[in-house]
């Protein structure tokens, strides 16, 4: 069990990081989308390891299915053959970005090293399988009791987002 989980973690971590690196360095946006797809699948497998079954299914269906299809549609619409121009419009742009990235890394490392992680149990107690088993019923229970207001708010948010997307597309069409 432990060895199997360690092997699975190493494999999935490697594919997730490889996919993430592909997103950043690929010249063609389609390759970036494929890299993101690999990362999403690997993270979904790690969700299943954590017994988050519903969230893993939603991740694959909504993210890897719907959202990535939307991304690919827009990439095809905008055109994949355009080369990203690389000339600098801001002076010392690359230097500033590198410096900022270094600062972020140092800041995060400092927080990680000096931070107080007492809330995270150092020695793992036997995991309460019943409490963290994220089946549909188990996740739905707090969703429709404690978080019902937030649930309604996200429903409203999705409706507004859909209406907004339609309005954006329609508005431009009429204007041109």
């Amino acid at each position, binding site marked *: *069990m*432990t060895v199997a*989980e*360690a092997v699975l*973690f190493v494999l999935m971590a490697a594919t*997730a*990081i490889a996919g*993430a690196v592909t*997103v*950043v360095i690929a010249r063609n*946006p389609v390759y*970036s989308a494929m890299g*993101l797809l690999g*990362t999403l699948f690997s*993270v979904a497998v*790690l*969700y299943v390891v*954590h017994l*988050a079954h*519903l*969230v893993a299914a*939603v991740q694959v269906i909504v*993210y890897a299915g719907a*959202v990535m299809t*939307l*991304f690919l549609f*827009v990439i095809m619409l*905008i055109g994949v053959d355009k080369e990203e*121009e690389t000339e600098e*419009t801001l002076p010392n742009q690359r230097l500033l*970005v590198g410096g*900022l*990235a270094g600062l*972020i*890394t140092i800041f*995060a490392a400092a927080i990680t090293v000096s931070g107080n992680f007492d*809330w*995270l*149990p150092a020695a*793992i*107690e036997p*995991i*309460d399988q019943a409490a*963290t088993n*994220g089946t549909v019923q*188990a996740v739905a229970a*707090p969703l429709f009791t*404690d*978080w019902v207001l*937030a649930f309604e708010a*996200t429903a409203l*948010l*999705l409706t*507004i*987002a859909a209406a*907004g*997307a339609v309005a*954006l*597309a329609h508005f*431009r069409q009429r204007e041109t």
Partner: protein
Amino acid sequence: MVDPGWYMSLAAVLFTIGALGMLLRRNALVMFMCIELMLNAVNLTLISAGRALNDLNGQVAVFFILVVAAAEVVVGLAIIVAIFRRRTTASVDDMSELRG
């Protein structure tokens, strides 16, 4: 059971790669994908913390983040397409001013 710290470290690495992509790339679509990458890193953190703390609310939070991210992608891609119709470009350097 793999230590939760390893999952946290993986999430931190994924978040850093996403943040770097935000800073390095100029294609609006790729920048959007980097945002998704960072959101996923945070989701992984919440799931593993919820497991380590024997708390199911981490998964509920991830569920909400997934919904909000889907709404954000819909509106963001609509804006990118709307800008592309006007400007025929997806580079953020060409849309630095906030007017049509």
